């Protein structure tokens, strides 16, 4: 792929300030309504009109001074009137490109492009907003450039033709009913408190009922927003396989779309909350470098990992894991019997296993968590032995990854086994790191190509 010639500057969609204003826009509209339809004399409205004129002017200026273009392998964004900023984002470091459409943006048929960058300081390049019909081609172009930029570093150019047409292949759509059920089942204590409140309200005398209703209402409201936010994000989430990785799309009011590239996955986690297990459900989460930035991210996501499928059959989850980590370990070994004394509640869930490129661990008291970490992504390894463990001749090995929440731990293994595991994992991680990146990418693509036919049968029930 030849580097693109420097293009001319582009501007964002003219309606961008309106959408970015969000609530301010709505407020302006509300102020405008009485002016438009009211019978007041015009003179009295001057202050309001002045404020509106200022807001409109600010929006116009912000639109005028912002421009962007693609320069060789960088995306350059210039913005700011007084404090002029010129931002340069190397496309080779792009981790993922998301398309985000908040409610207002859908109304005006525009969308935001978010480029997630690598690196611990890695910010997010935002193009807010771009006309809806331009978004998809632009994203494809940027992704292609990103791939090209990366391949240029290697001696062989990526000149081979794409093996498959860029059409994608839908693997799973999250059904709405189970999604609601899963959110409520996972947060069952919320439901219990809610029902308790209702019963309390029904049986208690009036004075107490008033108090209950007051506090209960506030609480119920916050709970409702929590449930709503998850529901809104994960509504009809679609997982599809494209030439460049897994495509995710979904959302009820705010639509998001993003691409997860297999080589960028730091860790994969399969979570089975206690009440989901009888139903055979699980949630599959992936941890991607640069995924958990605070800015511009919904706050609901902060403590949580990114759900690849918010709810689905265990078999479907495992199939997707296979797609992301083809060489995942199949056989997990249990810890020795004496661990019962140290971790009585966790004992039944503990196990670990490894292949040459991947390590898997399971744990959890009530909810089961299975965690896979590709060894090439391991940041550091820690061997820890506490006082109780020493008495029982046990030890744990922690596998640290760049992610925040996903963390694989070989908990409570026999001391000898833990020491060997530490040594082996150190060596395997080194070997995995050294393997040329290109070979790895081909491996993944081959695997994706051959598993393409398998995927057709897997749909959530």
């Amino acid at each position: 792929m030849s580097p693109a010639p420097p293009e001319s500057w582009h501007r964002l969609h003219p309606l961008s300030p309106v959408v970015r204003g969000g609530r301010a826009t709505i407020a302006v509209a509300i102020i405008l309504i009485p002016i438009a339809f009211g019978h007041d004399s015009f003179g009295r409205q001057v202050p309001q009109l002045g404020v509106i004129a200022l807001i409109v002017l600010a929006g116009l200026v912000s639109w005028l001074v912002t421009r962007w273009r693609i320069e060789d392998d960088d995306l350059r964004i210039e913005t700011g009137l007084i404090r002029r900023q010129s931002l340069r984002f190397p496309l080779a470091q792009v981790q993922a490109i998301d398309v985000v459409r908040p409610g207002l943006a859908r109304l005006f048929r525009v969308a935001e492009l978010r480029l997630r960058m690598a690196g611990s300081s890695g910010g997010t390049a935002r193009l807010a907003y771009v006309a809806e019909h331009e978004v998809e081609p632009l994203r494809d172009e940027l992704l292609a450039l990103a791939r090209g930029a990366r391949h240029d570093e290697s001696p062989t150019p990526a000149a081979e033709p794409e093996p498959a047409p860029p059409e994608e292949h839908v693997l799973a759509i999250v059904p709405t009913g189970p999604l609601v059920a899963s959110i409520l089942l996972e947060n069952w204590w919320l439901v219990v408190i809610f029902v308790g409140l209702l019963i309390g309200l029904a049986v208690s005398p009036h004075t107490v009922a008033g108090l209950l209703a007051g506090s209960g209402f506030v609480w119920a409201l916050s709970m409702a927003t929590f449930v709503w936010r998850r529901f809104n994000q994960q509504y009809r989430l679609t997982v599809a396989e494209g030439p460049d990785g897994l495509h995710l799309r979904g959302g009820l009011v705010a639509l998001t779309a993003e691409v997860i590239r297999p080589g960028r996955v730091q860790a994969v986690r399969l979570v089975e909350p206690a009440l989901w297990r009888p139903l055979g459900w699980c949630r599959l989460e992936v941890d991607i470098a640069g995924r958990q930035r605070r800015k511009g991210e919904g706050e609901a996501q902060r403590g949580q990992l990114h759900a690849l499928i918010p709810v689905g059959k265990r078999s479907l989850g495992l199939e997707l894991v296979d797609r992301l980590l083809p060489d995942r370990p199949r056989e997990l070994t249990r810890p020795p019997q004496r661990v019962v004394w140290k971790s009585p509640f966790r004992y039944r869930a503990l196990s670990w296993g490894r292949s040459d490129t991947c390590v898997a661990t399971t744990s959890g008291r009530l909810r089961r968590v299975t965690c896979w970490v590709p060894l090439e992504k391991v940041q550091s390894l820690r061997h820890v032995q506490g006082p109780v463990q020493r008495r029982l001749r046990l030890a744990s090995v922690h596998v640290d990854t760049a992610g925040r929440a996903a963390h694989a731990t070989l908990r409570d293994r026999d001391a000898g086994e833990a020491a060997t595991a530490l040594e082996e994992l150190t060596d395997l991680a080194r070997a995995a790191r050294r393997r040329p990146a290109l070979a790895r990418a081909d491996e993944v693509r081959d695997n994706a190509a051959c598993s393409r036919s398998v995927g057709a049968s897997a749909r959530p029930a």
Partner: protein
Amino acid sequence: MGVEPEEWRTPSRQLLTLRRVEVGVSALVAAVVLALAGPTAYLAVGALVTAAIAWPLVGRRYRSWGYAEREDDLLVRRGVMFARLSVVPYGRMQFIDVTAGPLERAFGLATVRLHTAAAATDARIPGLEREEAARLRDRLAELGEAQAAGL
């Protein structure tokens, strides 16, 4: 343990002195304050007894510290109750910082801390003599650069 290298380097003897001074001074201060302002003088004795018990533990804790530079990674071990051994590959190090608090400075010591992209990595080596800290920092930075691996 399996990854045991041939030789561990240890922090400076000065670190042991520093820790002992810390324990001794704080016990003395506590004893004096309790003796003057406390309800009974027994509390002051208690503070001194606690320090006496802590004395050998300080030594054990000091001896548990160790680090080793291997070909591809740095090993750091520490802890008596919770024995920890961290393996940090040079290629994963993002930055290294050297800090020295006022007490450490008075003893001519510094702490070297390693950071990777993982928040859980907690490799630090306290009580290095200043030249050793500078040497280690430069060496690690050099090795990190040579072996740097992308995320």
